[in-house]
């Protein structure tokens, strides 16, 4: 499967990136399901290893790559790191969702399918393509607040059902949680 062949055949392909011996296929959110079905049925990627969402809010800005938190929330003005040698590449949208696929055959080829979205946008669910996506997508919803359209049971999985906020977002306050029955009440 050469990069050029793939470019023609894969639905909604935007970009092919090669780094550290890994191939990343960036696809349009709208054609994610078609792209995944193609990779599973035509290229043999029957095994979905993982779904990894990432929040790039504040990417490349001072004080965000490891910030200090306080009970009032994140204080982006107090840098927890000593800054960056150089600014990392700009990301056009806030969230990425990476699907790590594996083909169970000679050479164990892996591929990463990636979609980009802003807050509030939804991703089509791939549960009907790989049933194992069920909990991975629930975790992505719970931790990052990414909505998966067509998921049969998109409920929180690791946090409590009535939890507010999505803890792995970069704007989720760390270092403090509201204390009930404190002296101020």
């Amino acid at each position, binding site marked *: 499967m050469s990069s050029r062949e793939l470019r023609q055949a894969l639905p909604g392909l935007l970009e092919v990136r090669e780094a550290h011996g890994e191939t990343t296929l960036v696809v349009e959110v709208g054609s994610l399901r078609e792209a995944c079905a193609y990779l599973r049925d035509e290229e043999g990627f029957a095994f979905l290893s993982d779904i990894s969402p990432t929040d790039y809010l504040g990417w490349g800005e001072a004080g965000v*790559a490891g910030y200090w938190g306080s009970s009032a929330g994140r204080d982006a003005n107090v840098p927890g790191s000593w800054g960056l040698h150089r600014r990392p590449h700009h990301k056009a949208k806030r969230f990425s969702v990476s699907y790590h696929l594996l083909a169970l055959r000679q050479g164990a080829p892996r591929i990463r399918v990636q979609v980009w979205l802003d807050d509030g946008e939804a991703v089509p669910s791939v549960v009907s393509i790989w049933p194992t996506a069920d*909990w991975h997508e629930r975790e992505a919803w719970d931790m990052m607040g990414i909505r998966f359209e067509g998921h049969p049971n998109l409920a929180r999985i690791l946090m409590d059902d009535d939890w507010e906020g999505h803890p792995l977002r970069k704007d989720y306050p760390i270092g403090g949680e509201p204390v009930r029955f404190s002296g101020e009440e």
Partner: protein
Amino acid sequence: MLAERKLIYPGTRVPTPIPSVLQLDPELREAGDILQINFGPNHPSTHGVLRLVVDLDGERVVGLNAIVGYLHTGFEKTMEQKTWWKAITYPARIDYVSFQYNELVFVLAIEKLLGMEIPEKATWMRMLLCELNRIHSHLIWLATAALELGAISMFWYCFRERDQILDLFELVTGARMHTRYFQAGGLAEDVPRGFYGECRTFVERMPRAVDEYEALVDRNQIWLARTVGMGLLSAKDAIALGQSGPVLRGSGVDWDLRRDAPYLAYDQVDFRVPVYEHGDTYDRYRVRMEEMRESVRIVEQALERVEQMEGMPWIADDRKVVLPPRHELHTSMESLIHHFKIVTEGYRVPEGEIYVGVESPRGELGCYLVSDGGPKPWRVKFRAPSFVALQATATCMSDALIADLIAIVGSLDTVMGETDR
């Protein structure tokens, strides 16, 4: 009893529309007589805190929903706040039974982003310790699985050998569990000389110990009645549900990352990948037993190599990432500065993203890292094999009896710390 077993059923048993939930037939619910019970979260057999909501029709399980999250501690969020080298301490605590693997996968991912070359001795020593850890993990599984079916003596025998492995870890790393022995670049310390003899004694002892375990349960009528033909999972269903490790190999899929996507020095050692095709609890047990024997073989080969490498470097010579040797701090200003910079600020990892997968005792353990070029990880995500394995409970348990619930869920070998992270 073994001879009569049928091969895996045709068709899929993965429930729809929710693959991880066995939904109760509404007609059954209306007919009444359905008992809904909460199994867990605080039950001694759930290996942590797992809650299973089970619908029972008599003794038959007709509905099942696994609820996780009780041990969620936010490891991934915490690691974003730590410098790369301080974060190495955390992965081991995610899965407290196969701690070396979690450490390994995180360190391998950092090294890949850094583009580091690792000394041969470190590679072989990592492999040796990881295989010891695999035996350790399978021993705990066997001990608790047998205990849950009432065979308490197995527990004592397994923990006898387990303790010897922990003694070996202590000898090398100074800690019995959560060793934090792997550094980006190699190992934290050289291998102590006394290790070789102790490890050889263990390698000679262990195959006989496995014989003893097999003598206890392999033909035991109670063990067979409780495991053979229970918790069926077909090869297709196992792949669709993302199962890996012994669960996948017990369902007849010949797949092992150590052989099929070799990392460390697995392409230079001789070992066999056991595969069984019935997809039941008994086959998962058989896979783990044979894996223990194979791990002993790998440890033996690695031990020989590491012993020949006496006096060779155990960590890469890269002063921007690796702490300088202690004795240099007294004489070299340069080393002192490097030491200070690495300890206070940490090293920077070039911008990029990476996914590394290794074969842990529970299956494919993956680590996805994103770095923005700074001294702290931007994003850490673990692909926890236990988390994925629990999705198969609904498929394995459909039409099973409540009495087999513990044996079947136990056969998936899940560690709740890793599930919930």
